[in-house]
């Protein structure tokens, strides 16, 4: 977890290894729209103690399932603007298949399991917590968190 902007190019060295022929990365960027609504900015909140613990479990599972050499995942918290990097995953491995599959596994599991929440602030003035059933369709004004 990081409350400061992510600098993937600095972390690349952490997964560098002469035994590795494949290096796969994924970045999640803040998009300017979501489900048809224009997004102005985002806020990520995390339950950091459990997020770190669950994140470590996911990394251990990936290392168990795939022939990777190094893997890193960092997720932002706080206020993000359009184009900012919300999450960065990098995997180095002997071969590309393991690198791609481990990278995909990590981001999929992180999105599914790690206690991080995203609040979208829309251009129209509404806002809502993503995936929150009670916040669904915030632009209809049926449920307001402001």
């Amino acid at each position, binding site marked *: 977890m990081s409350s400061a902007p992510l600098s993937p190019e600095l972390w690349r060295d952490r997964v560098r290894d002469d035994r590795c022929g494949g290096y796969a990365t994924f970045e999640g960027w803040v998009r300017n729209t979501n489900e048809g609504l224009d997004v102005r900015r985002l806020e990520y909140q995390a*339950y950091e103690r*459990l997020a770190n613990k669950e994140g470590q479990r996911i990394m251990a599972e990936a290392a168990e399932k795939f022939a990777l050499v190094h893997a890193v995942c960092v997720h932002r918290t706080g206020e993000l603007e359009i184009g900012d990097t919300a999450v960065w995953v990098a995997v180095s491995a002997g071969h590309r298949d393991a690198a791609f599959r481990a990278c995909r596994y990590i981001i999929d599991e992180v999105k599914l399991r790690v206690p991080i*929440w995203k609040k979208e602030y829309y251009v129209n003035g509404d806002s809502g*917590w993503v995936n929150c059933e009670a*916040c669904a369709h915030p632009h209809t004004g049926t449920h307001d968190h402001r």
Partner: protein
Amino acid sequence: MKTIQIEYFAVLREHARCASETVATAAMTADALYAELAARHEFPPLQTLKVAINDDFADWHTPLSDGDTVVFIPPVAGG
């Protein structure tokens, strides 16, 4: 009565109007505690809510102990 430390995140933090609170409760389990707090803070209905006790995911029927930290986990949305 047990003393339980609660932390709130996301939509629940907004409804509770605080990031954490300490409550004295007679609730035996996490689900009973949630019912109590949901009534007090008027939490919205959430179909897929999880619970963590002492910083790990737990079953809703786990018996609570004095001094536990409880966190209710609305649907996550990282990435």
